[in-house]
């Protein structure tokens, strides 16, 4: 696995959850991962059920086997000051810039510059080494912007390098692009088995490939369990209603005759099965579309009880089982 794992996906597909599960999955056997949040939504804190994360790297979970997950919610304004200090030794001038509203401009009005900081900070964490020359983090997992913006987000440094043709910003931008376009990086896309997210995934992959960014895997999230198989669904269309009513009655749900309690259940239950059949067919088609994209495909189950910390560990185990670690 590459050291920088970028997780994107259409809004609502659960990319933050998948990124967090991946960070846990990668933190096996004493490994240390950093989970980076770039959109300021505090989704990581909510997932790990901790208080709001400050702008600092902080341990938020221990993985089975002794690995550690650190989290960092990047605050663009602080990141900029940090950055100016770290790379350009501009401490006092940074404060002056802040007073003038330049920091505010850079981080809010012009999110292009904000993206420079966010990608730059992540790449810095990837490259950082401790005194003994070992990487501080074995893996960095980024909960990245949605599919529609991911290519532009990752490519922003190319644009910057084109704008600032010389100087430290130019050099820094190029250094970041070298990491992002190398095998050190993998961009994963999270999707659901629904038309629009699958379409967006296909479009996103095409864009990433066109920009020569390394595409990793497709992760299908919230896959519903199969309750009725194809043969059973065929039977749904053919089965006599009275037979189902008798069967329901035999199961202890009341009278089978028309108007009996079991009898009244037949129509709504078959209607639900029809809905299920429609979705089943649709999911089958979408799986086929994903299959044509020529990338490793993973599936994570829909958690019946909704998402919580225990569920997150379950998803991490699932990812590990599927070889994503």
């Amino acid at each position, binding site marked *: 696995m590459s050291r920088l794992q970028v997780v994107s996906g259409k809004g609502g597909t659960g990319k933050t959850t998948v990124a967090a599960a991946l960070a846990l999955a990668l933190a096996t056997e004493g490994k240390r991962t950093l989970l980076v949040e770039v959109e300021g939504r505090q989704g990581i804190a909510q997932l790990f059920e901790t208080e709001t994360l400050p702008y600092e790297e902080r341990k938020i979970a221990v993985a089975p086997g002794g690995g550690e997950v650190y989290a960092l919610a990047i605050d663009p304004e602080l990141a900029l000051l940090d950055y100016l200090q770290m790379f350009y030794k501009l401490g006092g001038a940074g404060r002056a810039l802040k007073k003038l509203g330049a920091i505010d401009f850079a981080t809010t009005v012009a999110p292009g510059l904000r993206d420079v900081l966010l990608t730059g900070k992540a790449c810095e964490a990837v490259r950082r080494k401790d005194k003994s020359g070992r990487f501080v983090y074995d893996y960095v997992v980024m909960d990245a912007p949605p599919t529609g913006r991911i290519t532009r987000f990752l490519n922003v440094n190319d644009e910057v390098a084109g704008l600032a043709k010389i100087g430290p910003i130019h050099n820094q931008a190029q250094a970041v692009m070298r990491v992002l376009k190398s095998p050190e990086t993998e961009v994963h896309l999270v999707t659901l088995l629904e038309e629009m997210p699958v379409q967006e995934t296909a479009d996103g992959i095409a864009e990433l490939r066109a920009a020569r960014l390394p595409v990793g895997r497709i992760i299908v999230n919230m896959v519903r369990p199969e309750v009725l198989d194809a043969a059973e669904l065929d*039977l749904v269309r053919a089965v006599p209603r009275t037979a189902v009513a008798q069967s329901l009655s035999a199961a202890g749900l009341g009278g089978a005759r028309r108007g009996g309690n079991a009898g009244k259940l037949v129509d709504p239950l078959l209607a639900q099965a029809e809905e299920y059949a429609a979705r089943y067919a*649709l999911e089958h088609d979408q799986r086929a579309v994903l299959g044509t994209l020529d990338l490793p495909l993973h599936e994570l189950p829909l958690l019946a009880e909704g998402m919580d910390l225990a569920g997150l560990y379950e998803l991490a185990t699932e990812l590990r089982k599927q070889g994503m670690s």
Partner: protein
Amino acid sequence: MSQDQGRDGGRRLSSARVLDVDPLLDDPETRIVVCCGSGGVGKTTTAAALGLRAAERGRRVVVLTIDPARRLAQSMGIDSLDNTPRRVKDVDGDGELHAMMLDMKRTFDEIVEAHADRERAAAILNNPFYQSLSAGFAGTQEYMAMEKLGQLRAQHDWDLIVVDTPPSRSALDFLDAPKRLGSFLDGKLIRLLTAPAKLGGRAGMKFLNVGMSMMTGTLGKLLGGQLLKDIQTFIAAMDTTFGGFRTRADATYKLLQAPGTAFLVVAAPERDALREAAYFVERLAAEDMPLAGLVLNRVHGSGAARLSAERALAAAENLEESRIVDQVGGKAGLRNSPDTYGSSESSGTGSPGSRAAARDEGSPAATDDERPADKRPDDEPSVDRLTAGLLRLHADRMRLLSREQRTRDRFTARHPEVAVAEVAALPGDVHDLAGLRDIGNRLAAGRPELPETTV
């Protein structure tokens, strides 16, 4: 709601007001409807469905979308939307529906062309910093959406403008962006950056303070001389042509607060989406923006809501136990999907239904009874097995209902004043006008239509 009273399982606690969209869409005083909410909740589809419904009820409507899926544009019979409103064909009734997609760069260019003489406009349009700013920066997208809204409103061609909001990192961004851009263009930084270019030499010195020389030095060092010059030229040009930028941002903001505007917060019955919706409701109130209500998409219902998940599961187990003999080991094989890495069940985290199935298959009773398959082969399901499946499906549905209801109740407890329209979940996506119309009908019904049954 009275129709919910006495209904069992999941749907009885709705105390929220029902949002009635038709009076809102019909009211000639309603001139702007803004759909906002977090990503992936069906915002754009909702905007399109509302626009169609209003048009078919006789209004002259334009829908301004920000980033529609191709499929949605196609569902309106338009291959690709652009920066000009295009009329949608096959709309019933006397009204009209037009649709457009915000082209950020085009809108920005139009402003420049409208406010600068030709020579100056060309200088701005060719400036590399401008080209990057106008095409790429997400903050300008929010601003340009508001700018376009202002333009459409000023044209007086439309009875009603339905606006979809940009897919922001957070739904709140688009309220802030115009203000930020306005205050930036009005602020110290811009005066600082424009001072050398505009005034030059000694005249500029008046403006300088102690920090100034350090500043330009810093910026020059940081950005490189050429970029700094590009930015300065750009801002100087912008400053003289866009004198009223701040005024325009303020005007757009006021437009959003005006009585003719209605905000609809769009969400799905999921924790994150509703949390975001709650923030938005609070924020709109703080800004005096008129909230019409919440559109809750993808709500599930059941025609057999009186049969609880527990009873359905127990009944399914009854059926399976009575014929467990030829059932052993059959299902697991059938359920795996071969072309993927993992089956959804192998983790044991599937539905309660699949968990129960796994337990049954692994229980000693089941293995003790195992015999050669001398009966029905597994690929020929019996009615009992099908019925058990129907019951498990129902149990899953009921758990989903109660989870959605819990999430919704949390929102209602926090904001009982917000009227809610529920839109029943569809099995697939919208492909045509009929699909949009269907969503409009569901929206107007206010809540999923569920056939009543009693058990």
